């Protein structure tokens, strides 16, 4: 009996140690990545780097301002296209999608989520670049929006589904038409989850590189429109990193740090937004 109990205790400790080790490993990866990128990139970040255009190889002092603004524009436009479609589609699935059509949409969205992003880039190339006959920021946004839609759709559906049935009944029993119940009661109740999921989808597409390779293409200069090639942070990191120049490698690390800082900022902002503020404690 004593031996058995001893064995049980040892196995218990071993299992605890194993799970703790794995948890630590996943956490330390994040800190390792953050630490290493900061170590390589921080020294290159200064005011000029974030406000100036790239300079030709050999000259010093070039920046990535066009990539930062380009990323903001491409991702911003993609979100403007992807978020409304995803949110309203998700509301449809949750409120009216308990039938075959809903099942098909749900299934299609799940398949779409699993399609490699470079394929989405190819699709946007065929859809936008070929008809317009040149690379453009718009085509990059279209590619990113297509990636975003199924993610936002399923997330929205999940959160709208979480709104208790009794809340819908209460509104219907007041003589409120169904579309108003959805728009004014159900969606506001689920709004935090919807906003959070949408912001996380924004950070996801902000880091996509492959879909931009043959859509927005990259551009070392400013461009004020949507119809010309445009630089974006992940794409710039990629081109700098595969270049043979030490100076560009250094800049790629710095650009990666900026991209990661953006992702972390949005994540932290989302956390703040998610904090319960029911007013009970005030």
């Amino acid at each position: 009996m004593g031996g058995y109990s001893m064995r049980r205790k040892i196995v218990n400790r071993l299992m605890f140690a194993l799970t703790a080790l794995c948890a630590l490993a996943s956490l330390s990866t994040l800190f390792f990545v953050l630490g290493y990128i900061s170590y390589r990139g921080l020294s290159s970040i200064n005011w000029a780097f974030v406000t100036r255009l790239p300079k030709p190889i050999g000259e010093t002092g070039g920046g990535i301002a066009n990539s930062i603004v380009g990323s903001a524009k491409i991702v911003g436009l993609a979100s403007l296209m992807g978020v409304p479609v995803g949110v309203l589609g998700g509301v449809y699935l949750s409120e009216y999608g308990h039938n075959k059509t809903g099942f098909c949409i749900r299934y299609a969205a799940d398949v779409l989520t699993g399609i490699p992003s470079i394929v989405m880039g190819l699709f946007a190339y065929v859809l936008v670049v070929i008809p317009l006959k040149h690379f453009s920021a718009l085509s990059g946004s279209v590619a990113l929006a297509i990636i975003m839609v199924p993610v936002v759709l399923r997330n929205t559906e999940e959160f709208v589904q979480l709104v208790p049935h009794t809340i819908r009944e209460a509104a219907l029993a007041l003589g409120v038409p169904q579309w108003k119940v959805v728009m004014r009661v159900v969606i506001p109740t689920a709004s935090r989850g919807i906003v959070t999921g949408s912001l996380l989808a924004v950070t996801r597409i902000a880091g996509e590189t492959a879909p931009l390779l043959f859509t927005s293409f990259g551009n070392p200069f400013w461009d004020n429109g949507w119809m010309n090639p445009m630089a974006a942070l992940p794409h710039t990191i990629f081109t700098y990193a595969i270049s043979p120049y030490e100076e560009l490698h250094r800049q790629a690390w710095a650009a990666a740090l900026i991209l990661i800082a953006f992702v972390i900022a949005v994540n932290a902002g989302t956390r703040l937004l998610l904090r319960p503020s029911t007013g009970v404690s005030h």
Partner: protein
Amino acid sequence: MVKTLAMPPQYIPDSSPQGSPGGASQAVTLEVRHLKAGYGTTPVLRDVNIKFYDTKVTAIIGPSGCGKSTMIRCLNRMHEITPGASVEGEVLLEGKSILALDPVELRRHVGMVFQRPNPFPSMSIFDNVASGLVLNGARNRPLIAERVEDSLRKAALWDEVKDKLRQPGMSLSGGQQQRLCIARALAVEPRVLLMDEPCSALDPIATARIEELMLGLKNNLTIIIVTHNMQQAARVSDYTAFMLTGELVEFTQTQQIFTKPSDKRTEDYITGRFG
């Protein structure tokens, strides 16, 4: 104290098996004729006939699954929103068939309070009460504010919340939330208030407050309350209907049903022999 208030006036005993308790000469607000309802192929209500009177509280009692909730959900056509639900027969609201009315329109006249308090989580106390008006297009702010105060007073909640109308409805206690839901239902000025076991999630003190409230409210309303609690039915109602397996077994003055039930099944249920 609630109990003495609740005792209905004495009437001549009624001999009709179902339908209306004889001797009563009040205005009928709702009349149910040959109502059959079910889910899919499962019948829940089999030919129910009943009348609900103005300024009276009618309690519907019966064991779980007897069709009490389904019945009152037919009265504001909430039954239909359940997928696969079916309904047959006639319900007249002040003489007019409710099936001819738009359900959205009907529900403004027949309000409902549910088992669990369900204030809208995204709205403040004020907005919860105002929701029925605002979501139906009311714009006149002073009028809305007036109606909100009036409804909260009727629901005996005004004094507790008048200084925190902007706080979320969910910040209130369970009993207060249920009174908030009553105020929300009253704000659209319904003719009938359906209450589906409104106290089943509340403690005895909160329950007593709601029961007291109902006695004040019935002055210009028809109240129909579904309850599992026979003491509650005895305390608050003027009439009681006893249902069993989708049929209305007995419907008469509350005092009579609890003292001299005419049907053996009613007696068995009331004395606790089953259910």
